C-alpha cells in the first residue's frame, strides 16, 4: 500500500471514531438536567467560537468579510432561511470587493 493512502486511512479512522462513539454509545435519553442543559448550549458555543473571528479571514479582505458578517446577522435575526442568509452574505462580499479592488 502506498504511503499517502496509509496516512489517509489512519486519519479517516481516527476522525470516524471520534464521530461515531458518542452517537452509538449514548443510546438513551439523558435525564440529568445539567448534562441536558450543557448539550443544549453546545451548538451555540461551538458554532459561535468557530464563526468569530475566523470569518474575518475567510474572504480576500477583512472589510468585505465584516460587511458579510453584519449582513448575515441582520438577515438571520429577521428570520431569513439558511439558504438565503448564505447567499446574501456571499453576494454582499462580492459587491464590497467590486468597490475595494
Amino acid at each position: 500500500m502506498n504511503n499517502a493512502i496509509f496516512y489517509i486511512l489512519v486519519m479517516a479512522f481516527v476522525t470516524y471514531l471520534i464521530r461515531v462513539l458518542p452517537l452509538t454509545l449514548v443510546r438513551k435519553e439523558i435525564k440529568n438536567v445539567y448534562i441536558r442543559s450543557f448539550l443544549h448550549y453546545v451548538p451555540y458555543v461551538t458554532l459561535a467560537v468557530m464563526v468569530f473571528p475566523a470569518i474575518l479571514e475567510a474572504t480576500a479582505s477583512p472589510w468585505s468579510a465584516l460587511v458579510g458578517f453584519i449582513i448575515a446577522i441582520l438577515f438571520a435575526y429577521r428570520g431569513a432561511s439558511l439558504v438565503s442568509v448564505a447567499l446574501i452574505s456571499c453576494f454582499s462580499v462580492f459587491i464590497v470587493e467590486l468597490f475595494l479592488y
Partner: protein
Amino acid sequence: MKTNIREWKSGIKNGIPIAMGYFAVSFTFGILAKQAGLNPFEAVFMSMTNLTSAGQFAGLTLIASAAAIVEVALTQLIINSRYFLMSFALSQRIDPNTSIFHRLIMAFGITDEVFGVSVSVSGKLSPYYAYGVMSVAVPGWTLGTLFGIISGNILPPRLTSALSIALFGMLLAVIIPPAKGNKILTGVIVSSMVLSLVFAELPLLQSISSGVKIIILTILIAGIAAVVFPVKEDTYE
C-alpha cells in the same frame, strides 16, 4: 416512507449552501494537496473518507513532511475532538430508538455545518434529513477537491472569496434565530465570540490550536451556562 422522503428533500435544500461553501474550500484544498505532492486520486480519497477541513489541511502538511503515523493520529484527534461533543449532542436529538445502522451512517456526516443544520431542526432529528444534507455536502466537498487538484487556479478569485463566506453565513443563520428575544442564548453567543477573539489575539493563548480552543471554550461556556441557567424543558424550536 413519505415522511422520510420529505425529510430527505428538506435536508437537500439546507445542504445546498453547505455544498457551495464546501466546493470553494475544498477547491483550495485540492490546489494545496497538489503542492503537497498528492495525486488526484489520493486527494479525492482523502476528502471522501475524512470529510473535515482543518484536519485535512493539517494532514497535508504532515504527509508532505513524512511525519510519524502516531503524530498524524494525534493531530486528527486534537483537531477533530469537537466532533465528539457534536456527536454527543446529536445523540440526544435523535429518537432513542434510532437503529445502530442509522447511527453509523449519520456519524460519518458529522461536520461543523451538517451538525449546525441538524441541531436546528424542530422536533426529533430524522436520519433522512441528515442524509439529505450529506447527499449534497459530500459531493460538494469531494468534487471541489477534484476540480482544485486537476485544474489549479481556474475559479476567479472574486468568486472563491465570495463563496468562502457562505458557510459562516449559514452557521450564523443556525445560531441567531433561537437567540432572538432570548437573553441567555444571546449572552452565550456573544461571550463565545468575545472569548474566541481573546484566544485569537492574546499572545499567550495564540499558540493553542483552533480545535483545542473550541473544546476549551465549549466546556467552559456551555458548562457555566448549564449550571447557572439549567434548561428545564428542551426548548428546541
